[in-house]
């Protein structure tokens, strides 16, 4: 077994350690490289920025704890922006396993910004049905959610004054880790009830949502941790996402390095085998 063969069969634990180090060191010693804001993320930011005070903003936190590292910072940044603009915020989730976390995000940011539940914001929680839930909300919000997450009757909440259906919501953003998520909100919501829709998603599903972005079916897309970091830069409140970008830079470069090395060894092995007539 020559060197190239040995390197191609390297113990995977060495790779695990390398990735671990590449994640840990930048988190401990951040560099803070500049983050360029993309037009997709700016689309969401600009729309919220242009909304007049008191407009209704619905944030659907359609993810579970598995996607917390990428989508939690997006949710925090969006909530901070919406509260800073004094929008009326409606929080909810289409994922039952994400209810507790969604409640934490909404409550945490609301407390931080001094907002009052029922007056400035409402957390509706989760209700079954996904597509039928969105349709019911489009027909009558109070039939879909007769009470909020804490059991208060939604009809009595000042934050929902003048809001009868999804048609009365000025902007909806779905932060999605898969289905149900942005596509569900477009197909069953925006298409019929004509509200403006934006999206945020994990890095892995972002490429699949570009057709919706290009056709204007969503007006902006916050993709993965990078998207969250861009949003934090836009609102001027750097948080977990910006802090995580150095670690992401290092791990991306580690993987690129590994891929280049593996190809170098592969071609070196192929060349030596073809010389000795062993190429399969």
């Amino acid at each position, binding site marked *: 077994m020559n060197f190239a063969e040995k390197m191609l069969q390297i113990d995977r634990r060495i790779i695990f350690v390398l990735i671990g180090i590449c994640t840990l060191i930048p988190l401990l010693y951040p560099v803070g490289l500049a983050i360029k804001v993309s037009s997709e993320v700016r689309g969401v930011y600009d729309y919220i920025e242009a909304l007049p005070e008191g407009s209704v903003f619905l944030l659907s936190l359609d993810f579970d704890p598995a996607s917390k590292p990428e989508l939690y910072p997006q949710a925090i940044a969006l909530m901070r922006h919406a509260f800073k603009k004094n929008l009326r915020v409606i929080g909810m989730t289409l994922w*039952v396993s994400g209810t507790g976390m969604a409640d934490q995000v909404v409550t945490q940011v609301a407390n931080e910004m001094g907002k009052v539940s029922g007056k400035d914001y409402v957390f509706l929680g989760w209700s079954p049905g996904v597509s039928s*839930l969105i349709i019911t909300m489009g027909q009558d919000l109070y039939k879909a959610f007769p009470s909020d997450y804490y059991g208060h009757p939604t009809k009595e909440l000042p934050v929902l004054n003048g809001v009868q259906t999804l048609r009365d919501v000025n902007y909806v953003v779905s932060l999605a880790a898969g289905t149900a998520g942005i596509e569900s909100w477009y197909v069953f919501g925006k298409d019929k009830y004509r509200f403006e829709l934006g999206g945020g998603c994990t890095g892995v599903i972002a490429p699949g949502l570009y057709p919706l972005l290009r056709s204007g079916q969503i007006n902006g897309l916050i993709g993965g941790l990078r998207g969250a970091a861009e949003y934090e830069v836009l609102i001027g409140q750097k948080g977990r996402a910006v802090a995580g970008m150095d670690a*992401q830079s290092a791990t991306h470069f580690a993987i690129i390095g590994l891929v280049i090395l593996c*190809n170098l060894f592969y071609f070196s092995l192929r060349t030596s085998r073809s010389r000795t007539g062993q190429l399969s």
Partner: protein
Amino acid sequence: MTFLRRQLPLLMTFVMGIIFIAQYYVPHPVSEDLLTTVSKWLQIIGGFALILGVTSLFHQHAVKIRRKEPGWGYSFVLYAGMLGTIAVGLWVNGKESVNGGMTAFGWVYSYTMVPLQGTMFAILAFFIASAAYRSFRARSREAAVLLIAAIIVMMGRVPLGEYLVPITGDITQWILNVLNASVRRAILIGVSLGAVALSLKIIFGVERSYLGGGKE
């Protein structure tokens, strides 16, 4: 019995299918009320689907325990976890927090489910790196194109990549917005046309596999 098993579901599917295709194009209040009512029905049925799912899971793991199949101990863990969570959930009426304080259900969620799911997802990064090293090789021209595109996108999506080679950011945007979006759109159109065709087949009774097997 054949009527109840076959004809009635087929008839219901046909009638409801036609009504709700038409409903989309009729904004009359009666039509909108019908949609509101049926959407509420669907939500209730969706709730029952959860019960069905939990029952099925319990049944599947009960069989594993009874037959002492390999790994049957994990089924006990599942039973303990699920029954324990349901018990504390019912105790606090399904609330993770009350008046700002965390309930037992919230504790289970925050300190069990959140870290477990987070860990599962985080492990992926390590396996992806290992898999990339072992299998991401330019064995053919197509694989080489994929490899180069992947490296550019990986560089263009992180600040260090854009700092070292500034053009990677713009190339990444072009790959995502033009190449990726056009191919995805083609796939999406194909899938959507397939979904429309399948829906029509179900409504008109051509596709009947959803009725399940069993005797006629």
